[in-house]
């Protein structure tokens, strides 16, 4: 049973809790009342998808209050090179957020009065337009562009269309980084949405709405090919320096607080993700697992397998949303390092909670829609 911890787990949780600062609700968090998270069963990406998403948003209080008249930035998840597939399955059936989920969200936002919707992703090792990246994944960007009145695309892995990077500070100083220099799109928006795939993650245990934001960092500054003093012009390679800390980001960006902290990716990545979602708060988290994969975040993680949980989760607090997702996946959202799925890493949820981003305890989260037990899909067999 979920949350039915053994004494050993409880002790581990208590020990882990001592490592991080306690949860202090931030002004941006829904202080004073439990954040609501909606769950919906959805077996296919067919006609049932749009009403399922509409129902979830209604259960959250309606999209209109969030997006009406606003510029909405949506970080989608197209992790890795488009070349990768799990077997012959299209990436959107395993490790990419499905374009129909994105299109449905865009459409509903347009219908709710969003002035502009901007789709964002940091295309793997490239400055090519996001639309081109999508085409390589066999997606049709025109379908997304036509889902609402004004839809834009931006590859955020580099400077992009702006003259300079936007600096977003981490409230309370952050675990590792006091601030991040990001593509302008993460600042030039009124509403920030993370649409993620519900997956296991080899480094961070799980990847949900928060971990999706690891990819908002431009590799021109935070990647292995980043310039030493200034950001590189072109993005090349991955985010190895974020994982292992073998060097600092470009000097133009704020360095981490303490380069003497562990260079272990299980320590670093969850903290960086927590810092990122504190610096760039997520206003709406949507996590989809109509189809997904278990065992890792992409086909390059082995062994992994394709799954069909048939579920969608959404909420206005990313920690709470991810906590519910963990429960859906059959994990304990209160889990700490050393317990599944965080055997080799710290809990991003715990670390984000410590920064005041939101709660992970299901008792402090209001659930709506499909009962949790009906959405449960064990990622680990």
């Amino acid at each position, binding site marked *: 049973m979920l949350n039915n911890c053994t004494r050993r787990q409880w002790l581990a949780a208590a020990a882990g809790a001592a490592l991080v600062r306690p949860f202090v609700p931030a002004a941006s968090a829904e202080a004073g009342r439990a954040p609501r998270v909606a769950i919906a069963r959805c077996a296919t990406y067919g006609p049932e998808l749009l009403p399922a998403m509409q129902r979830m948003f209604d259960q959250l209080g309606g999209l209109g209050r969030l997006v009406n008249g606003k510029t909405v930035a949506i970080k989608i998840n197209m992790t890795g090179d488009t*070349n990768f597939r799990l077997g012959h399955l299209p990436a959107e059936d395993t490790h990419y957020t499905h374009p129909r989920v994105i299109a449905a969200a865009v459409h509903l936002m347009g219908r709710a009065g969003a002035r502009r919707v901007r789709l964002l992703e940091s295309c793997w090792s490239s400055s090519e337009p996001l639309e081109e990246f999508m085409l390589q994944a066999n997606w049709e960007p025109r379908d997304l562009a036509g889902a609402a009145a004004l839809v834009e695309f931006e590859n955020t892995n580099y400077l992009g269309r702006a003259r300079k990077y936007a600096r977003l500070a981490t409230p309370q100083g952050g675990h590792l980084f006091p601030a991040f220099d990001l593509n302008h799109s993460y600042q030039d928006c009124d509403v920030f949405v993370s649409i993620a795939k519900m997956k296991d993650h080899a480094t961070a245990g799980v990847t949900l709405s928060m971990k999706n934001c690891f990819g908002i960092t431009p590799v021109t500054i935070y990647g292995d090919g980043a310039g030493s003093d200034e950001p590189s012009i072109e993005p090349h390679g991955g985010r190895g320096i974020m994982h292992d800390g073998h060097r600092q980001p470009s000097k133009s960006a704020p360095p981490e607080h303490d380069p003497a902290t562990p260079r272990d990716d299980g320590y670093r990545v969850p903290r960086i993700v927590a810092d990122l979602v504190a610096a760039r708060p997520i206003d709406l988290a949507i996590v989809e697992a109509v189809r997904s994969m278990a065992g890792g975040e992409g086909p390059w993680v082995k062994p992994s397998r394709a799954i069909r949980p048939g579920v969608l989760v959404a909420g206005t607090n990313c920690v709470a949303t991810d906590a519910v997702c963990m429960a859906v996946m059959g994990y304990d959202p209160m889990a700490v390092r050393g317990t599944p799925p965080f055997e080799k890493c710290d809990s991003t949820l715990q670390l984000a909670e410590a920064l005041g981003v939101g709660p992970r305890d299901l008792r402090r989260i209001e659930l709506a829609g499909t009962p949790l037990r009906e959405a449960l899909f064990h990622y680990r067999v």
Partner: protein
Amino acid sequence: MHPNWPLRWPTEWRDPAALDLLEGTPLGCLVFPSLDGYQNVIARARQLGIAICDIDHPPPGVEMLRGEWPGIRMTEGHGDATSGPTGAPWIDSNGWLIRLTRARKPGATVWVSADAPKTSEIVPLSRHLVAVADGAAHGGLWVVTLDKDMAVAMAARKPVSLDGWKTLMGAIAFFQAHNEWSGWPVDAVLSVVSSFSGDDEFFSHELLNLMARTNISYGIVETAALHTLHNDTLNGLRAVLYPDAQPPAAEVRQALLGFVKRGGLLIAGPHWSTIPGAPPGRPAAEEPHPRYEMRRFGSGRIAMARKQPDDPYEMAQDAQILLSHRYDLVRFFNGFLLGAYCTASPDGKRRLAHIVNYGGSSDDDPATARIAGRFRAAKLWSFDRAEAQGLRMAVQRDGIEVHLPGLSVYGGVELEA
């Protein structure tokens, strides 16, 4: 394709009895580093009706190219492959050079050779097979060149090496049996138009080499030939890339502008604008490109580089984006080491995508190919089967997907329109 498939005579084979190894094989011409010192072998070969030449004097009608061993370039002393500018493993191929030569010398038979691998190198059989497939897929003949270990083992008639030899000869026989494929024209969406010589030689050659690593299916047109070719040379293309630093001659410029006027995309350097009266067209109101100024002309567009490109890889990448991946003819999934060369039958009823696995062994992750177009049937040709095997097609919008069964070296996907 020349009927006599060439073998570089191994220096380790001094005994004419080694000629027995050629019996029943498709090999028909022996290539010697020089004819001195091999008189016994040569005399015996002539008795057997096997053609002879030295490497610097190929038979009439044959263009001998100095190429390289195709495949993944391995770091010396290390177990891992080196990376190219893509960050992906660097792939060597002679395809672009064979195609350039065939474009410049229509009707010629193209042989491509490379020195025997260093004695310290371990050369798996797959490397020989990849060399044969890479050459033949692009319409050339790889001069079979044995590594020392294989040559010595074969001379000693060691069973393992003889089995490998048999496999290699089977691959050559396969391509000989499909000789007509070498005459199928490229199925291109873009053509590179260049002098390919003089000051432009290095850049244009590197561009061809690196464009082969993108997904652009490209043709090759020499500027000298453009105005003498048929008016429809550029018809059916979506784009033309003119990489030369020098402005084109008036008639070439006219041909290219005609192409743009009819709706094509021209990608060119800034010296295009140094022509009196240039730049043609009006600025385009589309998304700006960091390195190219976009102009409208007639029904088409001109993408003019703001400064003369000096990085052929960057230009190849830019060309792909300026053209758009929308027009990729072949796209692979789980195919990091796969390369494709797309051709069409002269009657236009069939397409053939030559797929070479430069890794030389099938991966654990099965590959998928997405091929643009509408087709009635698909089948896969491979070395080890006399007949093609049917492929199940997953029909998509504007294309199909086929699942490629464990492709270790070569697969020819034939599509029926």
